[in-house]
């Protein structure tokens, strides 16, 4: 009897199990994810968060609004502390901001914002980049995303577009109809889709500089390379002196792509973007030639044979900033290494005994036109607003503060390149006059940028990343590699 009952109960459990499988398979079949927009804090996981307490909760209400209408007389977004609570959720006045890069020391930035807006509580969550991608996906998919989202231009903005509020009306209200002209075009252009602004650049960044260790070059009586052939010559000379000439973390696709974009834009400016858009094939002779030049860097020993197992961060960076290598390909994001504060940190980090002067120079001239390579870049971090946020005013308060005189000066002070015209880098802490001049001239370099850094389609990133590694190891010829990229490119749905 008991045995039968046990069987009976076991059968029920099995049926329950099967039912659960069936239900889970059918779950969400309606094609929509229910969005719970009432929770806009960073969920239960407070790890890595910085919260700045508002000076006073009383009267800190903000109004959750639709995007401001074009007509005059409406309350401009960004006005805080004046409207009634729209939801009564008790979260008004709190803005959650998730990013992988807080644009300088997180606590300083948060403190500066809170000082300017004591009625808005800022809650920051800033995990490492890959963790950030994972967490953001889960949060947005389940309707528990932050109010303000840190975004990378290109594929990331494309994928999250449906969750992002159009910020153009907010910007127009805040700064007038010619608001786009306030931004460096290299940043804002990558975030506009017609009149829609899915996000706004917070600070810009560009790649395409070759950084060199001036101490090493001076010690051996060498000058940084101006042409591509110089790069090979200088590398041989450094190798002969027992110095690693050029460190490159070729394990990472992104830094290989940076190198390839440099080469392609030097050989035929802009062609890579035409190929990205599907207007020309990736097997275009100039793009194949760029791949062949990439191969030369390995064949002729500029890049060491262990590079394909070396990560740019921390491996290659460690070698360069510990004074063991002559050159590295990086961008504006290392400007702080030209300041006294930056040097002090490096000396402490790598136990350096001497002061090292690191300087960026443009990528060497590859096509022989006598002009050095141009930078390519865009928004380092762009700020988007969660379209489902119940704290849109508070969110806009933060975004508009980040793009205010104070916010942009703050970014300049920590050597992040401001997104707004008229703002530059704070050069007061530069170690040498050459570094100071270099930092000042970076405005022109950025304005003269040849194009963007982030490709729109992740599939192309992967295909190019594979192609570059396969060419470097000799598994594919440049032609074969570009044919593989073209094959992947043809599968991309560019209408999406």
């Amino acid at each position: 009897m008991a045995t039968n009952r046990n069987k009976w109960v076991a059968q029920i459990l099995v049926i329950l199990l099967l039912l659960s499988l069936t239900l889970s398979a059918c779950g969400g079949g309606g094609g929509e994810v229910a969005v719970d927009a009432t929770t806009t804090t960073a969920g239960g996981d407070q790890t890595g968060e910085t919260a700045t307490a508002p000076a006073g909760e009383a009267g800190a209400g903000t109004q959750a609004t639709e995007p401001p209408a074009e007509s005059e007389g409406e309350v401009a977004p960004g006005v805080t502390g004046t409207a009634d609570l729209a939801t009564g959720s008790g979260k008004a006045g709190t803005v959650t901001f998730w990013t992988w890069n807080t644009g300088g020391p997180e606590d300083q930035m948060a403190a500066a914002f809170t000082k300017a807006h004591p009625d808005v509580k800022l809650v920051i969550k800033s995990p490492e980049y890959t963790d950030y991608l994972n967490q953001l996906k889960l949060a947005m998919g389940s309707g528990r995303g932050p109010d303000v989202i840190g975004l990378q231009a290109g594929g990331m903005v494309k994928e999250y577009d449906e969750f992002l509020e159009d910020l153009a009306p907010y910007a127009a209200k805040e700064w007038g109809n010619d608001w786009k002209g306030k931004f460096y075009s290299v940043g804002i252009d990558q975030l506009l889709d017609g009149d829609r602004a899915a996000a706004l650049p917070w600070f810009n960044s560009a790649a395409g500089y070759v950084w060199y260790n001036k101490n090493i070059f001076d010690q051996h009586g060498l000058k940084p390379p101006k042409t591509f052939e110089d790069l090979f010559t200088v590398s041989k000379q450094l190798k002969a002196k027992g110095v690693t000439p050029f460190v490159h973390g070729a394990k990472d696709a992104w830094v290989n792509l940076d190198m390839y974009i440099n080469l392609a834009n030097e050989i035929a400016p802009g062609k890579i973007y035409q190929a990205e858009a599907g207007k020309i094939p990736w097997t275009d002779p100039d793009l194949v030639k760029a791949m062949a030049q990439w191969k030369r860097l390995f064949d002729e020993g500029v890049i060491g044979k262990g590079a394909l197992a070396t990560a740019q961060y921390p491996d290659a960076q460690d070698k360069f900033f510990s004074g063991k290598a002559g050159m590295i390909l990086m961008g504006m994001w290392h400007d702080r290494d030209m300041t006294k504060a930056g040097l002090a940190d490096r000396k402490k980090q790598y136990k350096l005994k001497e002061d090292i002067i690191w300087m960026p120079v443009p990528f060497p001239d590859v096509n022989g036109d006598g002009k050095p390579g141009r930078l390519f870049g865009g928004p380092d971090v762009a700020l988007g607003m969660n379209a489902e946020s119940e704290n849109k005013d508070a969110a806009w308060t933060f975004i508009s503060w980040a793009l205010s005189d104070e916010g942009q000066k703050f970014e300049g002070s920590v050597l992040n390149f401001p997104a707004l015209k008229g703002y530059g880098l704070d050069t007061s802490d530069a170690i040498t006059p050459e570094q100071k001049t270099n930092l000042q001239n970076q405005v022109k370099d950025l304005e003269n940028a040849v194009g963007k850094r982030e490709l729109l389609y992740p599939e192309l990133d992967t295909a190019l990343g594979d192609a570059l590694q396969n060419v470097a190891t000799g598994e594919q010829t440049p032609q074969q590699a570009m044919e593989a990229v073209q094959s992947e490119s043809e599968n991309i749905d560019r209408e999406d």
Partner: protein
Amino acid sequence: MQRTSMGADTPSVLAGAKRARRTRSINRSWTNYLYILPLFVFILGFVYFAIGYTIYVSFLDWNGFSRRREFIGLENFAEMLDDRIILRALKNTALFGILAIVMQMLLGFLLAVLLKTRIRFKTVYKTIFFLPVVLAPAVISYIFRHIYQAEGGPLNTLLESIGLGALQQAWLADPSFALYALTLINIWQWTGFSFLLYFAALTLIDEHLYEAARIDGANFMQVLRYITFPLLKSTHLTLVILGFIGALKTFDIVYLTTGGGPGRSTEFMSTYIFKEAILEYNAGYAAALALFVVMLCVTSTAIQLYLYRNQ
């Protein structure tokens, strides 16, 4: 009267006792189910629900978080048929798995047999052999990335110092060596596990069998071949199954050392699934790949168990 009375009462007493037993039995059986309930709920929620959800996602064209989920039937599975990266990943997994399983079993078995002899400091050796098993993959990856460094790495330096400089390689950066270098890391890490299982199994073998063999004049190798090895059959099978599933699941060491590269030379199914799901926003296709791996695991385990039972 007394008899009559007893006769009248006996059925009711027996029935009462039966009822009491049944109640106790019911209570006991329900209590038993309560004991397994937490585990059942856990497995249901975290394993079977996840598998069910993965099946559902595999029929979608979906980036993993968008509200636009297009049902595309079996298209993701059809796409897998033309995917050359899967073949590469499977080939890598097979080579990695076979080499790792064979070497770990062989070394683990030999170490266990050696430690069954009257050797001193057994506990110290056991600890040393098992230590890599408990080390975090991040730590192991960091150590081996350093050891394998092409320029100035300890392995290449050692080779040079003993006059074998010609054998120096960019171990993790050269597609011809990278997979073998990873396999070596896995062997180093998991041999201790094989050793422990063999060592535990060896203690269960009846000493009389060895005594009888020795009386019959069997030497060490004969004892090993005809007694020890066959009696460890279930341990061999356990290690083969765990090793195979482990190879299919391998992710951390690969991701932290080569990232699947150079090119796709060390790509595994797990790293490929990660790239598709996270870096390329292809959650639907990644789910189809994941199901394929689950099917491989289930099928191969079933075949191995079937072969074992038929022996």
